[in-house]
C-alpha cells in the first residue's frame, strides 16, 4: 500500500495550517457546537468583507438571508452536522456590505485536542456559475416561449430521430405527450400516423448526410380527422461540436393549396365556357361548307346568324373576364356624363327584348330625372339584372323592373318569379366566380353580378338582393343623385 504522507507525517498540523491560511478560493469558518463563529480564514475575509472583529463571536445565521433563517436552514445545518458528521448545501450568503452571493458549502464535525466539538465549514463562492446557470435557464425558457408562440409545428431531433424538444403546435398536430428527458422516436410517430414515407426517408437522409431540405409538401391527417397540407423543412444545425440536432418545421399551407385548387377549377371552368361557343363555330363552319355546295340560301342565313351570335358570346365572355381582372385590381375608370335615367333604362330593356323576344319586361315607376354617371356601365348592370331574371326564370315569362327616386338617390329593382336563391348562397352572389349549385347547368361563369357590384361601388351606390328559393328574386341598386 502506498503510504499516505499526509496522515503519517508529523507535520499534518502544519499542512492544515497552510491550507487554512493560504487558500484563496476556499473560505473556512470554525464554529462551536452551538454554531457560534470562533475562527475565519483570510479567504473568507477577502470574499465576504468581514474582519475577524466583525464576525467572531457571532452566530452562523448572521451570514444567512432572512428567508433561509425563517426556514430554519442554519439551525438545521448545525443539527445535521452534529448528528451525522457532515452536511453540504448550496445557498445564499450575506456579505458584510449586505450584498448576497450564491455559495456551495460543506460542513464537517471535528474534535479539538481537548475533545471539544467543533464544526469546520468550507465555503466556495459560486455566484458566477449560478448566474450563468440562471441565464441559461432564462434563455431556455425564452426559447421555449418563442417556440410555443409560433403557429408552425416545430420539433428538434437528434440524429437517431429522438425528440429533444417539441413545441405546443407540434404536440397538438401529432397528439404527443412528450416530457423533456423522455425517449420518444419521431420516426416511429410518423410511421404510426401513416404519414407519407417520403417525409420519413427525407428526414433519415438529412440525418445521414447532415444536409437539410425544404418545400416538401406533405399531407397529414389531424387528430380531428381533417386533411391538412404542410410545407416541411428540415435544417441540421451543429449545436456543439460533433453534436448535430435537426430542426423540423411544419408550416400549414392547407388554405393556400385550397386556393390554388380553386383557381385551377375556375380556370378550367372558364376554358370550358369559352370552348362552348368555339365548338359551335366549328360546327357552323362545317355546316356552312355543305350548304355552299347545296346552295341553300335560307339555311345559310340561319347558320350565319348563329355564327354571329357565338362570336358575340365569345366576345362577351372575354370582355367579362378582362373587366373582372381590371376591376378586381381597382382599375375601373368611369366615363361620366349626364343623361336621363329613364332613357338609360329603356336602352337596356330594348337590348334584352331583342335578345329574348319571348319574355315580357314590365317597366313601372318614374325615372325621368337627370343623373350623372357612366351610362354604358349602368346599362351593363341593368341588362345583367334583366338577363339574370330571364336566365333563372324557370319557365316564367315575366320580369318586373321598377324605378324610384327621392332627393338623394335613384333606385332600380328587377323582380323575377323564377328559381330564387337559397338563403345560404345569398351573401355570396356578388362574389367573383360564385355560382350556386342549382345553376350549374346554366350558361355563365359567375362574373356578371361581381361586375355589377364593382360598377355600382364605383358610383358610390349600393347593390343588394332579396330572394326566396323557389319563389323568385329581386335585385336592387341605387346610386346617389349628384
Amino acid at each position, binding site marked *: 500500500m502506498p503510504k499516505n504522507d499526509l496522515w503519517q507525517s508529523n507535520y499534518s498540523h502544519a499542512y492544515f495550517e497552510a491550507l487554512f491560511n493560504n487558500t484563496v478560493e476556499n473560505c473556512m469558518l470554525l464554529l462551536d457546537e452551538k454554531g457560534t463563529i470562533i475562527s475565519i480564514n483570510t479567504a473568507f475575509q477577502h470574499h465576504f468583507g468581514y474582519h475577524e472583529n466583525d464576525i467572531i463571536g457571532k452566530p452562523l445565521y448572521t451570514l444567512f438571508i432572512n428567508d433561509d433563517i425563517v426556514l430554519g436552514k442554519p439551525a438545521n445545518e448545525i443539527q445535521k452536522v452534529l448528528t451525522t458528521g457532515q452536511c453540504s448545501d448550496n445557498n445564499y450568503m450575506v456579505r458584510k456590505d449586505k450584498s448576497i452571493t450564491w455559495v456551495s458549502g460543506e460542513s464537517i464535525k471535528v474534535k479539538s485536542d481537548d475533545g471539544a466539538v467543533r464544526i469546520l465549514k468550507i465555503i466556495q463562492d459560486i455566484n458566477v456559475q449560478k448566474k450563468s446557470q440562471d441565464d441559461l435557464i432564462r434563455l431556455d425558457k425564452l426559447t421555449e416561449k418563442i417556440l410555443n408562440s409560433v403557429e408552425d409545428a416545430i420539433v428538434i431531433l437528434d440524429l437517431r430521430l429522438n425528440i429533444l424538444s417539441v413545441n405546443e403546435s407540434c404536440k397538438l398536430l401529432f397528439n404527443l405527450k412528450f416530457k423533456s428527458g423522455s425517449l420518444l422516436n419521431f420516426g416511429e410517430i410518423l410511421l404510426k400516423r401513416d404519414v407519407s414515407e417520403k417525409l420519413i426517408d427525407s428526414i433519415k437522409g438529412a440525418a445521414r448526410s447532415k444536409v437539410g431540405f425544404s418545400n416538401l409538401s406533405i399531407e397529414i391527417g389531424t387528430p380531428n380527422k381533417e386533411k391538412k397540407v404542410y410545407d416541411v423543412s428540415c435544417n441540421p444545425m451543429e449545436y456543439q461540436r460533433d453534436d448535430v440536432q435537426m430542426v423540423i418545421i411544419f408550416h400549414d399551407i392547407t388554405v393556400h393549396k385550397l386556393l390554388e385548387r380553386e383557381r385551377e377549377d375556375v380556370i378550367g371552368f372558364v376554358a*370550358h365556357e369559352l370552348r362552348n361557343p368555339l365548338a*359551335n363555330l366549328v360546327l357552323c363552319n362545317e355546316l356552312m361548307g355543305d350548304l355552299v355546295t347545296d346552295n341553300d340560301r335560307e339555311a345559310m342565313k340561319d347558320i350565319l346568324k348563329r355564327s354571329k351570335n*357565338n362570336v358575340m358570346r365569345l366576345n362577351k365572355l372575354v370582355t367579362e373576364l378582362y373587366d373582372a381582372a381590371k376591376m378586381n385590381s381597382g382599375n375601373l375608370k368611369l366615363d361620366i356624363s349626364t343623361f336621363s335615367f329613364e332613357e338609360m333604362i329603356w336602352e337596356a330593356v330594348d337590348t334584352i327584348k331583342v335578345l329574348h323576344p319571348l319574355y315580357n319586361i314590365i317597366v313601372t315607376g318614374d325615372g325621368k330625372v337627370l343623373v350623372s354617371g357612366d351610362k354604358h356601365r349602368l346599362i351593363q348592370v341593368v341588362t345583367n339584372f334583366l338577363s339574370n331574371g330571364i336566365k333563372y326564370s324557370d319557365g316564367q315569362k315575366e320580369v318586373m323592373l321598377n324605378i324610384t327616386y327621392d332627393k338623394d338617390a335613384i333606385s332600380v329593382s328587377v323582380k323575377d318569379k323564377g328559381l330564387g336563391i337559397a338563403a345560404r348562397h345569398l351573401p355570396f352572389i356578388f362574389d367573383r366566380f360564385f355560382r350556386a349549385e342549382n345553376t350549374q*347547368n346554366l350558361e355563365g361563369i359567375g362574373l356578371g353580378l361581381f361586375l355589377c357590384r364593382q360598377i355600382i361601388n364605383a358610383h358610390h351606390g349600393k347593390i343588394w338582393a332579396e330572394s326566396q328559393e323557389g319563389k323568385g328574386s329581386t335585385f336592387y341598386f341605387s346610386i346617389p343623385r349628384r
Partner: protein
Amino acid sequence: MKKILVINNDFDTMSLIKKWLEKKGYVVKFTGNRSEARKLVRDFRPDLAIIDILQSDILVDIKGGSHQGEFPILLMTGYTSKPFSGKLLEYESIEKPFDLPLFERKIKMLLDNSVEV
C-alpha cells in the same frame, strides 16, 4: 337508322350537332332537361348518347332505374387539364372545340360496337 341523343345546356351546340349528324344520316334528338332526358331514353331509345361533362350527373338518371339504357356514352368536354373522376373515366370523350373527323370516327366506333336489339 341509328338514333343519337344529345344532352347539353347549350341550345346552339345541340341543334348544330343535330344538323351535322342528320346530314350523316343519323336520327337525332336533343334536350338540356333532366326529366326530358329520362323520357327520351325510354321513348326514343337511342343507340348512343352524347353528353356534356357538366351535365354528366344526368347519367345517374339515364343509366340507372328501370329504363336502363344499354347504349354507349360519348362525353363532350371543354376541360383539357381537369381529369375525369371515378366512373366518368370509363367513357369515351371528345374535346371542345370539336375535331369533327375525330368526333365522327368516335361516334361510328361506339355505334359499331353496340349490339343492335
